[in-house]
């Protein structure tokens, strides 16, 4: 089943103003650089972005923030971004903060057709406000709902014509979860391999969850916190 398209511009052509989009990645690790660049170029506005983080000032979702394309961020951690802070404090940007595991599991729920899940994260905190709490076996849990997103944009290491995806190291993070959760899922990959070029035992995202796939180019793969040790 051929899901290959030419490039990021074609991939995002149906994303219009006001769309709800999931964007994979953790920090700048495993983000769909090509699609983000295309969204910036397209200047689509009023977006709701579900993404664990919001990029940095000059990369990742930060570029969309600079361009004032984002109406609302749904994230677990949004530091490292001065423009983000400015828009938040000025009221231009709405932010919903969600515990990281809850964010991940609400994606999983969407991908697995479960309308809601129970998690203890946030019980007794302001995250619990307005949410249903239920006790199972002596422990309290919050009812959290599956996400609904028109589009999911993910970045994989390798992919094939059928949309099967394999991620690399910790660049996996939220990508396979969001890939399952979008109504339309767009995957950009570092390497597009021929049909049968992936080991069917090693696929992280089966192609049934992916609608469009293309090989990205010019990946920068920026490092946020370069930390090294000295050779002794």
């Amino acid at each position: 089943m051929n899901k290959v398209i030419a490039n990021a511009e074609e991939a995002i052509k149906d994303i219009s103003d006001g769309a709800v989009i999931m964007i994979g990645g953790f920090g700048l690790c495993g983000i769909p650089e090509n699609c983000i660049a295309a969204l910036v170029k397209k200047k689509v506005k009023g977006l709701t972005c579900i993404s664990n983080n919001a990029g940095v000032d000059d990369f990742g979702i930060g570029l969309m923030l600079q361009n004032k394309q984002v109406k609302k961020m749904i994230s677990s951690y949004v530091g490292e971004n001065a423009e983000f802070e400015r828009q938040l404090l000025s009221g231009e940007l709405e932010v919903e903060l969600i515990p990281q595991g809850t964010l991940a599991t609400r994606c999983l729920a969407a991908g697995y057709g479960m309308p809601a899940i129970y998690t203890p994260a946030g019980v007794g905190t302001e995250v619990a406000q307005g949410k249903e709490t239920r006790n199972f076996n002596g422990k309290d849990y919050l009812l959290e709902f599956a996400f609904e997103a028109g589009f999911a944009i993910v970045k994989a290491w390798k992919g094939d014509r059928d949309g099967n995806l394999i991620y690399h190291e910790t660049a996996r993070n939220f990508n396979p979860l969001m890939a399952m959760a979008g109504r339309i899922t767009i995957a950009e990959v570092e390497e597009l391999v021929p049909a049968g070029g992936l080991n069917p035992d090693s696929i992280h995202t089966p192609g049934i969850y992916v609608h469009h796939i293309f090989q990205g180019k010019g990946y920068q793969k920026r490092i946020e916190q370069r930390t090294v040790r000295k050779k002794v």
Partner: protein
Amino acid sequence: MPLTKEQIAQRIARELKDGYYVNLGIGIPTLVANYIPAGINVVLQSENGLLGMGPFPYEGEEDPDLINAGKQTITTVPGSAFFDSAMSFGMIRAGKVDLTVLGAMEVSEKGDIANWKIPGKMVKGMGGAMDLVASAKNIIVAMMHTNPKGESKLLPECLLPLTGVGCVKKIVSDLAVLDVTPGGFKLLERAPGVSTEEIRSKTAGKLVIEGDIPEMQF
């Protein structure tokens, strides 16, 4: 002498048991990895999707696809495994991680913890902290006993917005090791040269002192 950050990490490392899976938070907790006792094998979990975290890479060997939850470049050890964020928090929620070490702004005598938000300041988010504190089998907090103004961070009730309720089991501060018990903070050890009186004066929450309190040895 209050403990240095390294000594806090070193003291926490003594809580590790052979075969533990451990999640280390950002800051002092990260340093615990440097003091794992000889003969103790532990596997470090990084909640962005890795079991078997190794030390920082040598210069020039950084891999942008390989980072920890603090977004620092890292390495893996043999026997490591990568997974997605749902499985990562799944194993945390299921109690498979034996010990979580994290920092705190405040801890209450009931084990409540606040470490994610200061009203009036830019809120960066809770990241995985709420999941970790709500789910971990065993939580040790690494923290300074007082804030820069000298006010106690061990309180009857947290004043800041909570991260989790009744979850902290043990605190290693620059002044003391304390267990959170039904009766309050139970003093177990003093930093070298720090008196029980000093600890008492800097602990706003209920402090339980029974018998002689030993000094930590380094």
